[in-house]
């Protein structure tokens, strides 16, 4: 589900579609973005931060939403990731950001997902993060990473 589009600015744009409850393909975006970053020779610590946050964001869509789309814009100094989903939305964003707060159903928790650390873990990896949500419509998560100099 990876679709690279030509664009006018000097960035690589990668797009991934994510399906709710599809655990088998979850992680494809993280792997694809990582491969691209490795080919671009981006710093190892940045690859790591982006891969972790992307995976968490993908899993959030898989667990909570019906479907979603992840777009990564990769430039030499910064990476922007935008995850938009159609789903139940988040009624209280401040509460959702708290450690251990989870609305994941029991059967998902039994699989080892949905421990309520997803957003916390994402926050730890990113330089900027913005969360927008409309109840019963969906959620948009924007992540920004800056390159902290080459190794």
């Amino acid at each position, binding site marked *: 589900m990876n679709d690279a589009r030509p664009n006018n600015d000097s960035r*690589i744009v990668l797009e991934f579609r994510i399906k709710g409850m599809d655990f088998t393909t979850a992680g494809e975006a*993280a792997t694809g973005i*990582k491969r691209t970053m*490795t*080919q*671009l020779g981006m710093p*190892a610590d940045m690859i790591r931060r982006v891969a972790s946050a992307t995976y968490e964001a993908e899993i959030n869509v898989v667990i909570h939403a019906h479907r979603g789309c992840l777009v990564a814009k990769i430039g*030499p100094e910064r990476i922007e990731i935008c995850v938009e989903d159609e789903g139940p939305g988040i009624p209280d964003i401040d509460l959702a950001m708290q450690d251990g707060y989870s609305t994941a159903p029991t059967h998902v928790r039994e699989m080892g997902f949905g421990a309520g650390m997803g957003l916390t873990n994402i926050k730890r990896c990113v330089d900027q993060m913005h969360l927008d949500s409309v109840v019963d419509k969906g959620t948009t998560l924007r992540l920004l990473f800056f390159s902290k100099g080459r*190794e």
Partner: protein
Amino acid sequence: MADYYHSVTLDAEKCKGCTNCIKRCPTEAIRVRDGRAWIFEERCIDCGECIRVCPNHAKLAVTDSLDLVKAYPKSVIIPAPAFMGQFPTPDPGVVLSALRLIGFDEVYEVALAADAVSMAMRRYLKEHSSPRPLISSACPAVVRLIQVRFPALLDHLIKLESPMEMAAKIAKDTLGPEHGVFFVSPCPAKVTAIKQPVGRDKSAVDGAFSMSAIYAECLRQMEHAARAPLIPKASGYGMGWGRSGGETTIMGRDSLAVDGIHQCIKVFEEVERDKLAGLDFIEAQACVTGCVGGCLAVENPFVARVRVRNLAAERGAHGEEATPGLEQRLKSDYFTYLSEVKARPVLRLDDDISRAIDKLRQLEAVEDQLPGLDCGACGAPSCRALAEDIVRGYADEMDCVLKLRERVHGMAEEIVDLARHLPRSMGMKSHTQQSEDDDGEAG
């Protein structure tokens, strides 16, 4: 290119230029050109997957000749723990004796050094705050895989020498530096680790012999050896290193063992996403079943694995007290790497990120034009790899047989068009006639 030594090499005579190896290589290091395989030296991690998969036995692991022993006044042979799994005899002492009878002054079990390294690893886990899970550095193909594909995980590597390196060091320290030390290797990765080590400038091992060659030599000595067996000193811990799961037995509950290079990649991807932070330790081995599955081993890997497991169980576990001189060695950093393990960023398209982005965009554009069959007929493992080669200047779009066919088709159509076209000198009549004919056909 001369910067790299590799044990894995090609016998150009035997290579038929098929696509088996290019498809299997975990770092996409092989291409077929001029009817034979070529290895990108900077990418190869000596895992031996291509050796295993080649139907023509054109890939081989270069090891040393037994004649090398003559260059040293005295000699020690150090067998990998996996070697014990090659023989049906339940007594490892007989195998040790046979090894010496081949023509060595001493035998030192790598498994004994593995006992010491096991204890050093436990200490390392307790004393080092480096990111979890720690990853064993015992398999050299795995270390190189991390250098090439997972640079972000270099911090996780346990910076302790392998049992092989330690066995050689201890043997020289205790028996005398005039001893040449020779390893019985299950795989090419270990041979490369001796010729071009990571974590130190020079290995203490002086040469490596193929396990299968030494196996044959040992068989001739078995009868004699059975009458005068040596006494093995290694514990079950050290002996267990010969198979997958051996290290995790030592490192406790929160450890994971993975074997097979492609499975290792999957586990490392999980580590990279911080999904396995709850684990203390990962034992990762490039060969399925661990060292007994090395491509220089003789016995069926699963049979050998059971033998090693049973031998280890019979010998039982030893604690730190069973390893003499351990405390002193730990204090003096005897086991630790002497130099840094660096990333090998050979997959990047350009040293400059902006230029790399341009190249990647070209790559994606080229890939879009390719059929996506990943047939390998162009000599690259996938359409994407061909696109990468084109952008790097190593290949041409016409290397793709389907693109070539498309182009031939286009040219053939053009030729038919030209053939129909009559010169003006032959008159308008013919032009009119032709269009009437065309109308006729269409009608």
